[in-house]
């Protein structure tokens, strides 16, 4: 199944509804559309902002490889990944994944796979800026590695 892939790495916000509509447009065999939006939490009101650093060039390349792998493993008709960089305030969106498929399991599993893989493979790094005190780089979670491992 030829899947329409869309990858974007951008500073500005994205329009989830528009991306979801685009992922199903022009096809009459889509039975399921899944969106995953990752949002900046305020961590108990302690966080002023996140700063997202990325590796330009590789970020787009790696997200494309991850989307291609999802398209090879599930019968999806579309996969979209949009990842923001720069300063992001609590309540703002960080990342969007959209999948479309004839079948619900494929759309849901592919979205879950995309999130697990991009968490551990896409070259982005989060730095926390708290309202007071020292911030710092967010430590990678072992649970993220385990989540990615389960798709091997």
């Amino acid at each position, binding site marked *: 199944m030829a899947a329409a892939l869309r990858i974007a790495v951008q500073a500005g916000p994205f329009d989830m509804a528009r991306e979801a509509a685009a992922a199903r447009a022009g096809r009459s065999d889509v039975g399921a559309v899944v969106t995953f939006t990752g949002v900046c939490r305020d961590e108990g009101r302690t966080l002023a902002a996140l700063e997202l650093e990325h*590796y330009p060039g590789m970020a787009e390349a790696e997200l494309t490889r991850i989307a291609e792998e999802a398209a090879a493993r599930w019968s999806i008709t579309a996969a979209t990944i949009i*990842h923001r960089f720069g300063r992001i305030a609590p309540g703002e969106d*960080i990342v969007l994944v959209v999948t479309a498929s004839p079948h619900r399991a494929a759309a849901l599993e592919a979205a879950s796979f995309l999130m697990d893989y991009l968490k551990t493979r896409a*070259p982005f790094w989060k730095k926390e800026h708290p309202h007071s005190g020292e911030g710092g780089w967010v430590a*990678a979670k072992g649970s993220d590695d385990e989540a990615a491992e389960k798709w091997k």
Partner: protein
Amino acid sequence: MKLVYFASVRERIGRPEEELDLPADVATVGDLIGWLKGRGLEYEAALSEPRAIRVALDHVHARPEAKLAGVREVAVFPPMTGG
């Protein structure tokens, strides 16, 4: 060879990128990390925990045994925390 650094590695080394001439015996990613650690305290601080260092060769993730021959850009960074 062009080296680029990100996140905590960039901050500890103190620069985002540099051009370096590698000795002939630095053939793999693992060799490179070992050699970089000998370049000064800032490098040693940045690379002290090998398990917390990731390397990409020309925008593709690479393991310590990967060869550097023919590579134009090497990136060194901590484990990723996007998403």
